[in-house]
């Protein structure tokens, strides 16, 4: 139930984001989720893409610094209090959230979270009755996408 997220280090100047989107688009790699954490000089671009391993290789070939991180994707109903319920389970279990990004659309919302302990996060959320979305359901179609423990 872990999802591999791609992070890219980018300087805060024009043309950096489009270099990434051009590379991925050209290679027919689809972006499912994306966010940019910014500071004045640089930012970290985080993405869930259809083929993170291939994407990492292509971006590295373009000279970019790239890393792959395990995150978790929770699907909650799109109603007030749904996010709070999930976060409270983590907080009670002593798991700290490093960052998250989410988008609600229609009946459901998808929340991507990186925490201090991903394995424990998966266990705590499943035990709490949360629905976790795996790589396959996020449109990720590469060899490592199928976690045998699913």
């Amino acid at each position: 139930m872990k999802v591999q997220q791609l992070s890219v280090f980018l300087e805060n100047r024009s043309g950096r984001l489009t270099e990434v989107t051009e590379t991925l688009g050209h290679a027919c790699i689809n972006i499912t989720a994306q966010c940019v954490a910014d500071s004045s000089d640089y930012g970290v671009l985080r993405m869930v893409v259809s083929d993170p391993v291939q994407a990492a290789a292509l971006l590295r070939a373009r000279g970019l610094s790239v890393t792959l991180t395990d995150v978790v994707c929770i699907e909650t109903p799109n109603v007030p209090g749904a996010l709070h319920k999930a976060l409270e389970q983590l907080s009670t279990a002593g798991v700290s959230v490093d960052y998250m990004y989410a988008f609600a659309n229609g009946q459901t919302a998808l929340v991507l979270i990186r925490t201090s302990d991903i394995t424990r996060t998966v266990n705590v959320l499943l035990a709490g009755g949360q629905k976790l979305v795996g790589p396959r359901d996020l449109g990720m179609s590469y060899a490592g996408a199928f976690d045998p423990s699913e």
Partner: protein
Amino acid sequence: MIWNSSQESMSRDELAACQSRRLRELVQRVYHGVAFYRDKMQRLGMMPEDIRTVEDLPSLPFTTKSDLRDNYPFGLFGVPLDQIVRLHASSGTTGRPTVVGYTRRDIGVWSEVIARSLASTGTTPTDLIQVAYGYGLFTGGLGLHYGAEKLGCAVIPISGGNSKRQVQIMRDFGTTVLACTPSYALHLAEAIADEHIDRSDLKLRVGVFGAEPWTDGMRREIEQRLGLTAMDIYGLSEVMGPGVACECSARCGLHVQEDHFFPEIVDPESLKTQDPAIRGELVFTTLTKEGLPLLRYRTRDLTTLDASACACGRTTVRMAKCLARSDDMLIIRGVNVFPSQIEAVLMGLAGVAPHYVIEVDREHNLDVLSLLVEVDERLFADTMGQLESWTASVRRQIESALGVSIRVRLVEPKTIARSEGKAKRVIDRRNIQ
């Protein structure tokens, strides 16, 4: 006014005789008192008696900053510690400070050469001097202080910083002589404008500026904005501190106090003595120092020497304004900085030094030091918190090692220019050459 005309206006022959006599005494002193020099001379098969005149100096070995570092802290002192009355320190190449020590007589000589220097700038005992060089381990503040007191000026020991207060005091006390780094002088000019102080409210007449290289262009700007005569003073802690040389009213070079500090010009590559009219590396032998006596100390400053007659009446040799060095040392707001110190911090934090470049700019007349580090995958962490804390750690360690503030900026891989040979580690965008 010449402070000490018997020493500053001797004939060249009398001066050479004085220097040779002092050199003989010096060589005896270091041979018997400093193991480092005794070993060196013995390995060369030399006895102190072999040195009769200053012409024999080239047969003696050089001394370098790394010799001082290797003998940190007091290994090169010429007297036992109980005869030392003052210690100062400046930064060294790998984070170890260069320590200098002074006996009571050394402090007396230092005050004397500063008094001579101030007098040659046109400063007199009736002046009010604002010493805005840093007081502390740095030799600038206390050096000017003791010499100005000896001359008889009213000394304001204000040290650096707090520009608003500096200019208020300048106006309220009626400062007539300003002593600080040239870039700080320009910074004070801005503070004067910020405080809405009119030039006519100030009584500035003379500026005594040094501790960093500055061009004639900067001189004109300082004079125009502060309404004073801007004079160049030179020195280095290892040789004494400020006051080793200073400009006179003729303004064609800085008179070297050569009855105390014997200058030579050598080729920076071969280290052979050369015609002093050709620019080369300045080397000093401290003829009268007791605490830290040095033979042929390589300053790494590049200059020329001119012994022709000077309109001011002083016969001491004049060195040209120093604008270049033969090593990679930078002077940032008066502080010596070696790129290797920065590299050592990066290596300590990252295991291997990442690609980096040091940029030096001048903003609002103050030197600004920036370090750009390429974030390769060894350094890249996924959270902003980790990147920020690494950056903060680099900044803290560099500031602690160097004693100057630095901005650290993370950049993408391959954005720093690569070179075929030795990496160009420093981009100095200040126009000081």
